[in-house]
């Protein structure tokens, strides 16, 4: 028996080494490598939970190994055999109370984080959050900056160290805005507004996408997020205001047709004539493109374009 | 067997008369009274629940010898599911977005 336990120790050591390696590898994973306070609070919550979970795994796996190794039926087995052991109140109470305590320990930070996520992250500058309307349409993104009076398609510029208030809605199917490096997702739905607060602390280019399946072009509905410091952002806003064309309703209607489009920029927003997040605006797109929704793209991998909209940015 | 049921089924008649009265009270509460809307809603649903109970117990013999516990048990849980479905849907689909 002692001999076997020694083996067990070796295994445990192996597992711990493996675990450390695994965790160091994890810091490469987008979700566990946050670039802003929202993603950071979610990462912290995940790691906090992970500690408890690994504890449970260690306990269960150890008990399991001991039971299976020790009580296997084989010749010359010395372990005790008690076929009529039918239960033990005390033990069962203990392993009811422990999960209850773990669940409580997980619930408290979860709930406080849930409420925090509904507010802009702690203001790092005195100005309020930057409002961006993120409107999804099959299979593209419109980002409208109402205060700046500009609109981009399939790419996004945001200032660092300032909270972004995304007002999410959809022109047609249900979609979700997800920028894993900056924080979790929320759904875009026609006829509804959802609000998502995100913030970038480090300048950089991050991947964003629609994460909720919505048909053929789903895999290509991605965009790049350019996080830059506020003066660079201001420069970009001004140059877009000055050089990009105005968005006309006809052009916008044409863009709504289901399909994949390149990046673009405009010096006005579609919010002037329709807000898909209201009951009045929810059938705007299907009223115009009913026939096109029935058509197929025949999208093949690698065809049409290289994984999502091209790097080139429109309007500049 | 004859003794089981009387010529004049008192239970049924009581149930019927009460139901008719309750119906008219509900109609009066909804259309004729000046109660605040919230109170109207609560009171008419209370009246509906009483009427449903009359149907179940006086007409449908929910509790009757020889049937065991399954019928009332299932109806009890059915009522809970009924409530979860309506209240839960309103809670998530309407309340959450207000």
């Amino acid at each position, binding site marked *: 028996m002692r001999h076997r336990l020694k083996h067990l120790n070796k295994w445990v050591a192996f597992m711990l080494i493996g675990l450390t390696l695994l965790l160091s590898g994890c810091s490469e994973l*987008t*979700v566990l490598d946050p670039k802003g306070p929202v993603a950071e*609070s*979610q990462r912290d*919550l995940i790691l906090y*939970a992970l500690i408890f*979970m690994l504890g*449970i*795994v260690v306990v*269960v796996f150890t*008990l*399991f190994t001991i*039971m*299976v190794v020790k*009580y*296997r*039926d084989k010749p010359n087995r010395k372990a*005790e055999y008690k*076929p009529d*052991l*039918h*239960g*033990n109140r005390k033990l*069962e109470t203990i*392993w009811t109370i422990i999960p209850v305590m*773990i*669940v409580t320990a997980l619930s408290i930070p*979860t709930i406080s*984080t*849930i*409420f925090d*996520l509904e507010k802009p992250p702690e203001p790092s500058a005195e100005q309020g959050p930057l409002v961006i309307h993120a409107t999804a349409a099959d299979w593209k993104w419109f980002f409208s900056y109402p205060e700046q009076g500009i609109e981009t398609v399939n790419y996004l510029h945001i200032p660092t160290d300032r909270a972004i208030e995304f007002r999410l809605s959809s022109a047609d199917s*249900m979609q*979700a805005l997800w920028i894993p490096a900056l*924080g*979790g*997702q929320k*759904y875009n739905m026609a006829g509804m507004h*959802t*609000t*998502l607060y995100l913030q970038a602390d480090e300048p950089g280019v991050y991947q964003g996408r629609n*994460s*909720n399946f919505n048909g*053929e072009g*789903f*895999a290509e509905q991605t965009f790049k997020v350019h996080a830059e410091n506020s003066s660079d952002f201001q420069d970009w806003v001004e140059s877009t205001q000055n050089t990009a064309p105005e968005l006309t309703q006809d052009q916008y209607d044409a863009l709504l047709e289901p399909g994949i489009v390149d990046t673009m920029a405009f010096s006005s927003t579609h919010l002037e004539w329709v807000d898909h997040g209201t009951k009045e605006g929810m059938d705007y797109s*299907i*009223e115009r493109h009913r026939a096109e929704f*029935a058509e*197929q793209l*025949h999208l093949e991998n690698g065809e049409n374009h290289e994984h999502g909209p091209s790097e080139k940015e429109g309007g500049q | 067997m004859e003794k089981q049921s009387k010529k004049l089924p008192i239970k049924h008649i009581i149930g019927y008369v009460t139901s008719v009265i309750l119906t008219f009270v509900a109609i009066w509460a909804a259309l004729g009274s000046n109660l605040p809307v919230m109170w109207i809603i609560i009171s008419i649903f209370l009246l509906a629940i009483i009427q449903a109970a009359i149907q179940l117990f006086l007409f449908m013999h929910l509790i009757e010898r020889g049937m065991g516990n*399954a019928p009332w048990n299932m109806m009890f*849980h059915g009522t809970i599911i009924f409530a*979860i479905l309506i209240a839960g*849907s309103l*809670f*998530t*689909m309407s*309340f959450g*977005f207000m």
Partner: protein
Amino acid sequence: MQLDEFFVTGEPLIYAGMVAITLVTGAIIFLLTYFKKWKWLWREWLTTVDHKKIGIMYILSALAMLFRAGTDALMMRTQLAFPDMNFLNAQHYNEIFTTHGTIMIFFMAMPFLIGLMNIVVPLQIGARDFAFPYVNALSFWSFFFGAMLFNVSFVIGGAPDAGWTSYTPLAGDVMSPDPGQNFYLLALQLSGIGTLATGINLMVTILKMRAPGMTMFKMPIFTWSTFITSFIIVFAFPILTVALALMTIDRIFGSHFFTLAGEGLPMMWANLFWMWGHPEVYIVILPAFGIFSEVIATFAKKQLFGYTVMVWSIIIIAGLSFLVWVHHFFTMGAGAFVNSIFSVTTMAIAVPTGVKIFNWLATLYKSRIRTTTAMMWALAFIPSFTIGGITGVMLGMAAADYQFHNSYFLIAHFHYVLIAGTVFGCFAGLVYWYPKMFGHKLNERIGKWSFWLFVIGFHITFLPQYFLGLDGMPRRVFHIVPEWLPLNPISTVGAFSMGLGFAVFVYNIYYSYRHSEREQTGDSWDGRTLEWATPTPVPEYNFAVVPHVTSHDAYWNMKQKGETVYDESKVEPIHMPNSTGQPFIMSAIMFFACFALVFEWIWLAVAGLIGTIVMMIIRSFDYNKGHHIDADEIKRTERSARGL
């Protein structure tokens, strides 16, 4: 309608599928004719109301569906192996993952478990059949024709492509105008009615037909889990019925429940779907818990630890299953308060589940473990399911779920619970009860090969997917990008290992049929519950004499006391229901009606509906009372089966 619109054209893979279907169908027809088995097929199988035969048909269908949906999975994994794969295009990939999910849940997991319940529950409680054998046959055939209707979409009309959750408005008539989605709606409706009927049937059977002395808390644990599962079915399936009907009315008759026009509310579909959908996952996991409890107790040669607590934890899980549905759409933005409530209810499920895990471990304590294949499936379940369970708790934390949702983390989680729970459970149950069903065991050596291939493959497939999810890989994309490279090919390799494991499992069925020793006694594993008290093969009336039960390990106690279940002096004539072709014919007519409705041929559908009503009227006027098996015949059967 043009013929080339009717049949799916232009896909080499689907042409290959058509050829395969034609060949297989041709081969079956040829073999049946050549061996003159048509009459046998009709008399012994299509018209049977015997719960054991119906159970076998359920399991065979489920295995076929596992093959079909497993092939889908392998095709998906092939496409996702490398970033530049062009094995499936976007549309085809969407169809494949939709059918994979739908078939696995509705036409594999549920019928497999219901098949096991069919065979085992009446035997475990000492009953002669179901409470309503006719309805049982009807349930099976409506499931079977529902499955056929769904699979027909593959070659006729086009497969559904909106995901197994079919979220509106994507699945509505504007964005999915093809008949594919109608196939989904009507096939699920048809088989769902059968499931509901089975739920009611099993509840009444368990409530009313238990052997004398078997109080509720002396029922075997698998019977308990079946009872609670049936309870969930009774309350959850009507929700699905309504949700499917509403979407069908939306699509075919132009109403506005889930549409964008007419101020419809697409998210209401998600709400209704998950109000059914979350109880549904417990419908497929609780029976598996029951199977593991039986298998572990038998092969550990020890009483189940904490029987009462095990039962109560099932009941609590069932209750909570109706209170957590919102965690499937935390990201819908219903507000912090709503999300907090459902976070807590979700995590609360971990408590009874955790208790069960520890009770299983405690059952192994001071036991004597025989590592048969069935036991190995059950043992593999404990650690694998633990991983699935704890990641489930993490997904239940709404704030963290915003990052996990729609990602491969979620995919990994539910495959960890559904494969390690349900699929391992089905395999454990099948191996365990196989001798009772077919009169011979499955070969142990080949069984262990299939076990190791499948279990190792399973972990290689799904463990990497947790990390892919954390790396931002969303579910349902039809190609990967180079950043997700090293883990995706690994996952694909694992999937093929699972496929191989399944192939070996099926080969084992064939091999054992040819070579396994036939069972001499009814008690193949030194069992504990009443099903092992019957002779093998089980006579159609199950128990010549209904046993008297004193504990939840009824047969074990009888063996300990040296009692026998069979007392020839107590044999009396037994009343049995007659075989009937009505359930088969009625389901076939419903299939016809649903098929017509898929293509919106309303008058044909109405004709089918009238046909169904006529069948119901015929049934209403049918006062057939069944037949009796006389005592002498029973004695003869028992003597030869028991070798007396």
